[in-house]
């Protein structure tokens, strides 16, 4: 064989990708590390070395930062705890013999490919405290309705509902793919032994689906932590700061106040946080 001749070829093939990926991640990374030790403010032109002061400020729990982190976690937990069971439910539904199943499957992919900034702003209109169709219909159904995005207590809920509308199909489609790959034999023998539908679900479906449920959840968590577009589309972080998720907070620090130094410090921690989670999570997936 021509193994020797081909010794360097594999590396040659990945070279362009490596230049793209490493070049474009490592250089900005060092840039960010450099800025995180300065009080760079591109509006006033201030730019001095301040050592670890940015990190000090950050770890002293800048209250706005702490709030945005806890809001992000609340948002992520809220979304996940609705989307996972709902997605599983829809997948089970789609796995049955239902008329128009293919059309249904096609329709639920639509939210996934709609630009969040475009469809999000439509939701902004639907959530309108005065003319919004959602408020109108909720009032029609329940007699009363919150003011959704105009109410600090409901604004985050509004975002959770929007995200659920857009991303539950993602969970459903992944789990559906899993359900369709399950072998029929365990179900057949369970039927022979008189197991109820619930028992089959509990003792056959759930254990077999666990890897895929985990996978879907991990994908969702990674995306939820970085949520930016829906906030920019629907609430602009408001009312007040009620929906200022971490990404949006970071946007304000970096591009509204132009505190590039401080923003870099937060970015780095955010980046490391997500990468740490991703690495742990991917290792888990690899083991599944």
């Amino acid at each position, binding site marked *: 064989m021509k193994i020797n001749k081909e010794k360097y070829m594999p590396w040659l093939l990945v070279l362009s990708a490596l230049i793209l990926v490493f070049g474009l991640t490592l250089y900005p990374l060092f840039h960010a590390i450099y800025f995180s030790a300065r009080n760079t403010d591109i509006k006033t032109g201030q730019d001095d070395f301040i050592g670890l002061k940015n990190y000090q400020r950050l770890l002293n729990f800048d209250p706005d930062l702490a709030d945005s982190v806890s809001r992000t976690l609340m948002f992520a937990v809220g979304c996940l705890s609705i989307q996972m069971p709902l997605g599983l439910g*829809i997948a089970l539904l789609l796995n049955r013999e239902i008329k128009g199943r293919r059309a249904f499957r096609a329709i639920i992919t639509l939210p996934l490919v709609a630009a969040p*900034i475009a469809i999000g702003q439509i939701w902004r209109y639907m959530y309108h405290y005065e*003319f919004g169709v959602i408020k109108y219909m909720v009032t029609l159904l329940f007699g009363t309705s919150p003011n959704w995005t105009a109410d600090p207590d409901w604004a985050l809920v509004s975002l959770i509902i929007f995200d659920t509308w857009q991303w539950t199909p993602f969970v459903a489609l992944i789990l559906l793919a899993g359900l369709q790959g399950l072998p029929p034999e365990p179900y057949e023998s369970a039927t022979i032994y008189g197991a109820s539908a619930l028992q089959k679900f509990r003792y056959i479906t759930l254990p077999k689906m666990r890897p895929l449920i985990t996978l879907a959840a991990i994908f969702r968590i990674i995306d939820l932590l970085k949520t930016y577009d829906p906030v920019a589309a629907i609430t602009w972080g408001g009312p007040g700061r009620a929906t200022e998720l971490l*990404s949006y907070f970071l946007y304000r620090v970096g591009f509204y106040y132009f505190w590039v130094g401080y923003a870099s410090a937060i970015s780095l921690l*955010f980046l490391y946080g997500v990468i740490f989670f991703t690495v742990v999570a991917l290792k888990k997936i690899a083991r599944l």
Partner: protein
Amino acid sequence: MLQAGSRKTKNVVVDVLCHFAVIVIMVITVFPLFWMFMTSIKMEHDILTLPPTLLFEPTLKHYYFVFERSKFIPGLINSLTVVCATIAVTIPISMLAAYSFARFNVGGGHLQFYILTVRMFPPIAAIIPFFVIFRNVGLLDNVLSLVILNALFNSPFTIWLLYGFFREIPLDLEEAAMIEGATRFGAFREIVLPLIAPALAVAAIFTCLFTWNEFLFAFILTRSEAITVTRVVAGFWTERGILWGPLSAAASLCVVPMFIFAMLVQRYIVRGLTFGAVK
């Protein structure tokens, strides 16, 4: 499944409930899209009214507004430029890398893993250093900066997706060709490329989807010259409030082309969205 009498009626009930649930979910899924379209053909007084109107005199004025008085056309040209350039950069690079990973296991999996983590970066955390860099080299408000970032953020995805497809092509085919005297490049071109071509199309369509829908980079890096469609769609607010009609028209124009693409890759949508992890 064969079941006794009472079970049968129970099954009918379950069946009816399931169909009912399907209808409810379909309505909820489609409603915002329906409402977007309806709003885009309503007059202002039908948009800002209570109760919301279902019957009204339709108008195309908002579409005229979008094309004539907003920056939608330049935005469209920029978006198409960014999408095409991103695909042109990403797909060949990813194809070579994915082939190398699939056939030679370069870097023993670690490299591939590192590349994947790039996709997990929160874009907002990555954008700050890029903003400063692009500002220093004068690339702000330039489509090139968007192409660079979209290529960076999409290549991990396309590499992984194509990696999965390459792994499905049996090694025997190539080896047989090589034993018969073909070079590796020849075997790649004659045997592998035709087999991987549909996958390249799928990867290109997904890249198109993500790049077209991308908002954050466009929002931060462009001001007027290089604004994209998503940036235009986000720009319909004035001192007197948001122009809901033109906004809905522009949003419809932004969203509908991607629906068509999504239908084209319907079979691969799960595989695409999970980077090839779920087939």
